[in-house]
């Protein structure tokens, strides 16, 4: 599943580059590509018994390879989200919920961000809430709900004025563009959902 995610995110390089060019410095696409390439190498290089080890390794790979703001932020999501995953063997709905809820908390602490700051938090927060609500549903439904919530959250960042990261000095000029990190957040969840759909067929 994570391998599929890596492939997908590497494939989205250009989308993310354009998103970051609009209101940032244009490196988010290659940063994420570099990061998920590192995750892929890490996954191929080792075997991971438990889900939390897998996500921790992925998070660490992101932190040490992406650079910029998003390496820490996305790495912290992956790593911080493992707090209550000990023992989980594969991703199921409760694990998804725990991963997103705890990941969100870790990101907010590390990034000192609140919702409305026009960051990936604005996509991750609704996604975490949706996954929490769907914790009893089958995984594909929970992922579908989280993905859709992330998409709406991402769309909503278009109407926000950035107050964090490189876009903050843009002020009003950041209006109309989604936050690149929010786009990534949506794409990450969508990839996981797609994978579940495909493998469930």
């Amino acid at each position, binding site marked *: 599943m994570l391998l599929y995610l890596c492939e997908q995110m590497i494939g989205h390089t250009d989308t993310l580059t354009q998103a970051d060019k609009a209101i940032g410095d*244009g490196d988010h696409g290659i940063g994420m590509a570099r990061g998920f390439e590192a995750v892929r190498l890490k996954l191929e290089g080792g075997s991971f018994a438990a889900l939390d080890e897998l996500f921790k390794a992925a998070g660490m790979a992101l932190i040490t390879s992406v650079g910029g703001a998003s390496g820490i932020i996305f790495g912290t999501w992956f790593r911080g989200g493992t707090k209550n995953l000990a023992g989980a063997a594969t991703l199921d709905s409760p694990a998804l919920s725990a991963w997103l809820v705890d990941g969100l908390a870790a990101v907010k602490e590390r990034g000192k961000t609140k919702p409305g700051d026009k960051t990936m938090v604005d996509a991750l927060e609704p996604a975490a809430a949706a996954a929490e609500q769907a914790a009893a549903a089958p995984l594909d439904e929970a992922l579908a709900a989280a993905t859709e919530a992330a998409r709406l959250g991402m769309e909503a960042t278009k109407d926000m004025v950035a107050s964090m990261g490189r876009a903050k000095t843009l002020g009003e000029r950041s209006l109309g563009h989604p936050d690149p990190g929010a786009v990534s957040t949506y794409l990450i969840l969508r990839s996981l959902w797609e994978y579940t759909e495909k493998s469930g067929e």
Partner: protein
Amino acid sequence: MVRKAKKIFNDPRNVVPEMLDGLVAAYNGRVKKLDGVNAMARVDIPAGKVALLIGGGSGHEPAYHGFVGDNMADGAALGNVFAAPTPDIILEATRAIHRGKGVLYLYGNYAGDILNFDMAAEEGIEVRTLLVRDDVACGPVENRRGIAGAMLAVKIAGGAAATLDTLDDVVRVTSRALENIRSISVALYAGSIPETGEFTFELADDEIEIGMGVHGEAGVWREKMVSTDTLVDRMMEFILRDMPLQRGEEVCVLINGAGSTTAMELLIANRRVLQVLAENGVTVHECVVGSLFTTQEMAGFSISLMRVDDELKRYYDMPIRSFGWTKW
């Protein structure tokens, strides 16, 4: 179709390590690359010295990694192009330069850099952090980006760290420098990112943007091309409004090229900056004109002023030897 930059590289994904090899060589034996990470350190850091670490994204050469050396920084951590270095790189560099007296982290006020340096600072070595926030185009000081004035801050911090005994003292002197540095930039056209070949922003052929950041972050306003003198006058107004200078006060001046702006244009701008300062009765302690903090092949320049007194001049006047700036 997007216009791509015309540049000479090997594999654009390897620009940072390849550049670092060439850079370390160009230090002619005075710095070494650290194993396994994109970081470097002076080879001759004295025992018991307060250490100074600088760094940030690559692509701004010679900044930051060109400013390691005698009476300058002890080491530098390099990120990828326009991306903060990761915590492991910063941590390696910190360990390599630490001599028991603590380490000052000095870098620009960018979210990514702060996140990464802060994470590295949690690993046990005594670290203090100072952020460069010299860009007066960004409103209140907390929001301000670190641009070319950072080089003046590194000069003072390097001198202080070579001379003073405690991290506290180095922090105090460097903070004083930071409080007295103001910069403003103008961009004519963008630089490009090697991995994509794309330019980071677009300006019309006859447009310039005043206050634009070193990655293409928005400035204060766009306008049609104007003459050097008109432009410098407006830029100086921004700086002097933010840091009014009294007659008889003294400043160091840095006219910094963004990458492809010619030394000729910079020198003509320098002429005007000095005229404006003279009109204001401000004395110039020294002026430096060069491309010290670039944004790849971006065109444009910035003006930085550092108000100095006897204490700051003492450190400013120290000889320095680094790739990007040498003085005696």
